[in-house]
């Protein structure tokens, strides 16, 4: 017969699942294997990371593109820890008091291993002085000198008063203390003259007395004016005496401390200012600690020391004495404070107080000189954190900022600590979508994150890669402290991750999924009291995972079995095809057959996609349906308009549909309706179609086949049932073993087709037909029937138009 396509045979069982032979793996259990690098299969990403860490220029920070759960974070961690470990140990940082401006604490850089030593040395210095200084001030000599100063001041005061008193006494005038102040009064017999007596004095005498008193009052004012001067002189003399006495002891003690840090210039500079301040504030050492007015609350650690001497404390921000190499910090909660550090406050008598000892380091302080890893999504959702990180990277220094200050909520005194120079590589980990958004919406992102590490989610399933992947299993097993995996188990796991990759020629690199499966298989191995994980344990782990998630799938299949959802799996029907779709619920994907029907009548060449009309169809689905129109026009309306009205519908579809994987099924239904040739209901169809009638690959092929298989199996496997898939999907087949077994037993078939014509031949048992040299389809072909039907529609339409001239004939 002219134009007859070659009869399509079902696929052999061998093509339905790409097996892995445990014997070829060449080991007994994974305990025999050397663990491998987690960056296995990620050459591109590894190169990017190597480049980023080696590139010592500003802005070459790294964005790791990868979906969550793929284990990229662990891979990056392993890589960075290796690199950081080989780096030089970074310097340490401490905050100390700024004796000139206490609001701006100073940041000191110290070589590794010196920060804690410096803190202890300062504590020791103060402890020594706490003993040495008070004893200096308890000597007889000091007391005598102090008393001399006080006596001198008192004597000066008394002397001034005494002179005045003598002068007044000579005039029979007394100086009196009153509740209001000092006053002068005339006296007689050492008593103030009574007013009545005073009034009896003659006027001249009264005026003389008043004049004397007025003069004395002026002199008293002068005496009183000099009192603060005398008091200031006394204080100055006391301070000078204290300084003179303390300076030698302080200088010796500070020199002893300085000798321990001879090579560290910032420490020596700081010690100079400490020495000056100690001499200036030697009084601190002579007081009782309880009298301290500004007493911060006692807490554990260095803060619990005597609060009077906090000003000489050392607040260690970063101490690297115990570590070799640089740090690789993973900040899981990248708030502004956790990143840049914060200035804490203590509540004291209802007031919030702070000092440099309450500066807490952030993750950037700890990572300085090394690496910091942050999840992009987390930092972008933390208020102020992203902008602060960018500012920090631009300025190459860590400046502690407060969120409250930024929004104008700061209601208490805080500090502005000296910024710490920053030398760090920031590694952001996030999805591709976030990366794209940042590139497009944040102009600074490209300047600060010049390197992207794009992680693969799968790699080629070659024997070499299988071997590598098994070594990855071994690494995970070691890291997770699991039982070793035997060869059969490893083979099954390789097959499973190939299926997870949706490709028989690829292996998934979803380390998170692999790790979960291994953990669960280990659990079941333990449950079965086995010393190694076997294939049975891996299989049980896979089935258990599915079993926990497939409640909805069971409900859908039950509905089909009970004919609530109408799906035929035997007989034939015109204009009705079993399509296949994939539904995903909570990460679990399953195939679901859907009845696709087509109805035709005369019309103006319009193909109605009912899904689109009711807005249940997505754009890709609509595109697929439009391609059908194009296919029909190209094949059947070359020399006349397509006088067709047709409707297509996914029956009993109550949710949205998208994708074009059902477009071939829709075309089969449409052609069946037009040709009035019945379609086998024992078959289901998946595959998209292009304008040329070629069947194209679709996704989820395994789930779709298994979905129809499960329905058929629930009823009865007749041997007539099967699924049509695009030929280009053969390489993706990793079907379940029970499906493969059914195929082997001849109870189920999978057909791979390249064209619509091949599909029609299987579905209808009739050749579609090809136009001959005269441009006609063979008389007994399906397309001939289609063309004839369309011709009839065209004639009917013409007749209708002639009957109703002038009227619009469109639908």
């Amino acid at each position, binding site marked *: 017969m002219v134009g007859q396509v070659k009869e399509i045979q079902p696929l052999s069982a061998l093509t339905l699942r790409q097996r892995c032979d445990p014997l070829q793996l060449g080991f007994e259990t994974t305990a025999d294997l050397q663990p491998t690098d987690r960056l296995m299969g990620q050459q591109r990403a590894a190169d990017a990371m190597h480049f980023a860490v080696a590139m010592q220029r500003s802005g070459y920070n790294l964005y790791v593109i990868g979906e969550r759960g793929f284990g990229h974070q662990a891979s990056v961690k392993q890589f960075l820890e290796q690199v950081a470990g080989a780096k030089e140990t970074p310097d340490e940082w401490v905050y100390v008091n700024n004796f000139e401006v206490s609001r701006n604490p100073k940041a000191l850089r110290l070589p590794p291993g010196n920060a804690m030593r410096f803190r202890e040395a300062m504590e020791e210095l103060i402890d020594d002085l706490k003993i040495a200084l008070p004893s200096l001030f308890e000597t007889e000599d000091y007391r005598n000198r102090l008393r001399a100063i006080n006596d001198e001041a008192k004597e000066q005061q008394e002397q001034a008063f005494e002179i005045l008193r003598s002068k007044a006494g000579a005039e029979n005038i007394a100086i*009196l*203390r009153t509740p209001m102040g000092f006053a002068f*009064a005339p006296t007689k017999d050492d008593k103030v003259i009574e007013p009545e007596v005073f009034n009896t004095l003659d006027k001249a005498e009264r005026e003389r007395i008043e004049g004397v008193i007025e003069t004395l009052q002026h002199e008293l*004012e002068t005496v009183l004016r000099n009192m603060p001067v005398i008091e200031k002189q006394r204080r100055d003399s006391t301070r000078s005496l204290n300084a003179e006495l303390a300076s030698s002891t302080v200088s010796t003690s500070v020199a002893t401390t300085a000798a321990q840090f001879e090579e560290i210039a910032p420490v020596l500079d700081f010690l100079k200012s400490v020495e000056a301040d100690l001499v200036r504030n030697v009084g601190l050492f002579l007081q009782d600690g309880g009298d301290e007015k500004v007493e911060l609350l006692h807490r554990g650690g260095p803060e619990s020391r005597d609060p009077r001497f906090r000003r000489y404390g050392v607040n260690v921000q970063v101490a690297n004495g115990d570590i070799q190499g640089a740090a690789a910090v993973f900040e899981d909660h990248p708030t502004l404070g956790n990143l840049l550090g914060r200035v804490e406050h203590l509540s004291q008598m209802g007031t919030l107080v702070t000092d440099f000892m309450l500066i807490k380091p952030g993750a950037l302080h700890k990572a300085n000189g090394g690496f910091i890893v942050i999840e992009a999504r987390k930092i972008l959702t933390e208020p102020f954190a992203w902008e602060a990180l960018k500012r920090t990277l631009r300025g190459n220094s860590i400046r502690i900022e407060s969120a409250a200050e930024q929004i104008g909520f700061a209601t208490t005194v805080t500090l502005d600590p000296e910024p710490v120079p920053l030398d760090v590589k920031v590694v952001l980990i996030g999805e591709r979508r976030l990366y794209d958004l940042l590139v497009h919406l944040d102009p600074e992102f490209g300047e600060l994150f010049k390197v992207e590490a794009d992680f693969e989610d799968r790699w080629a399933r070659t024997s070499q890669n299988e071997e590598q992947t098994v070594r990855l299993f071994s690494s995970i097993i070691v890291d997770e402290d699991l039982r070793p995996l035997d060869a059969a188990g490893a083979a099954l796991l390789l097959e499973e991750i190939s299926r997870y990759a949706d490709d028989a020629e690829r292996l998934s690199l979803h380390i998170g999924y692999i790790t979960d499966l291994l953990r669960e298989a280990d659990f079941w191995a333990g449950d079965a009291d086995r010393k190694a994980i076997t294939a049975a344990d891996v299989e049980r782990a896979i089935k258990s995972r599915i079993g926990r998630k497939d409640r909805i799938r069971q409900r859908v299949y039950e509905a089909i079995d009970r004919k609530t959802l109408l799906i035929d799996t035997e007989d034939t029907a015109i204009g009705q095809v079993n399509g296949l779709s994939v539904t995903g619920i909570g990460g679990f994907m399953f195939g679901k057959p859907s009845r696709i029907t087509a109805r035709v009548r005369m019309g103006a060449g319009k193909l109605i996609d009912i899904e689109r009309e009711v807005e249940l169809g997505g754009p890709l689905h609509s595109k697929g349906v439009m391609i059908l129109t194009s296919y029909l026009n190209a094949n059947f309306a070359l020399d006349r308009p397509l006088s067709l009205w047709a409707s297509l519908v996914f029956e009993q579809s109550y949710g949205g549909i998208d994708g074009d994987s059902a477009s071939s099924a829709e075309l089969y239904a449409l052609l069946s309706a037009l040709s009035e040739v019945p379609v086998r209901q024992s078959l289901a169809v998946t595959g998209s179609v292009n304008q040329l009638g070629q069947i194209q690959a679709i996704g989820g092929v395994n789930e779709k086949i298994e979905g129809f298989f499960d329905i058929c199996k629930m009823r009865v496997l007749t041997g007539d049932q099967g699924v049509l898939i695009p030929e280009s999907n053969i390489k993706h087949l990793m079907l379940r073993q029970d499906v493969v077994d059914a195929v082997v037993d001849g109870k189920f078939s999978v057909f791979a087709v390249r064209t619509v014509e091949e599909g029609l031949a299987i579905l209808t048992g009739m050749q579609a037909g090809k136009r001959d040299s005269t441009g006609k389809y063979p008389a007994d072909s399906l397309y001939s029937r289609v063309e004839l039907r369309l011709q009839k529609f065209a004639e009917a339409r013409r007749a209708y138009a002639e009957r109703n001239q002038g009227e619009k004939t469109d639908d």
Partner: protein
Amino acid sequence: MQSATRAKKPMTDVRGNSDKNGKKSRPFRVLAGFGSMADELPTIDAAMILARALEADITGCFVEDADLLNLAALPFAKAIRPSDRSVLQIEREQMEQQFSRAASNWQRTLFARSSHSSVRCSFKIMHGAYSTEIAREAVASDIVVINPLNLPYRAPNAASLLWHAIDEAMGMVIMPERSQWLPNGPVVLLISGSNADRSVLTIANRIARATGNQTVILTTDAAEGTRQQIRDTAFEIFASEADIRLVAESRLETAAVRIAELRPSFVILQPSKTSLSDASIALLLNSSQAPLMLMRRG
């Protein structure tokens, strides 16, 4: 204005507790002298401690200083405030109001404190010179608590003047000028030269117990034998109730330094008539910054 009412002197000896008719009476009275110039809260606190320690009543005497009233009545009376050297006109009515306010304030405070301590107390307002009126009120069994700041005439030996002026009382507590006194430290008994009366040791012991403090005994110019005698007497009186520290200091100056280091709550001294100079009293008051209790001998 109220005038002073002279109390009849009870017939009691220092250690006795009944008069010649055998009527039960309290052995001591605490006479607290108040004036208009000093902050009298420390005076009240000291009086309360003594009243509790000696199981005595308190009589508060507020003296309206006659010299100040006379001054205020003079037509040219003015005062210069030391803090800002401003000159204020003084009027008699204003001075009387000052006295009235101060008297009622200290009376109210004294009664409030005494009600919490279950100490009986009375209050008088007297008119005249501070030292004269307190001396007139004092009797032999009195412990007088006074503040030299209430003397209107500014003199370096004000405390000493008071000690000599009020010679009727059994003892006198002179409050330090402008001190932040808190009765937290030990009670220091300074024994100069010869043996101390048992009564002084007893009083020191009772004050220490009332304030929950230790007693420290310092001796000056005492021979080893005398010191041993003091130690024996002290142990006999104190038993195990107090921590006795006997410290020998050769001079009053060094003893004053030691007293200052101890931060005492009270300093008690039993001087002979001639042994205590003006300078010594001033030294002890200034160095200890605590109430100085001077007990008369005999």
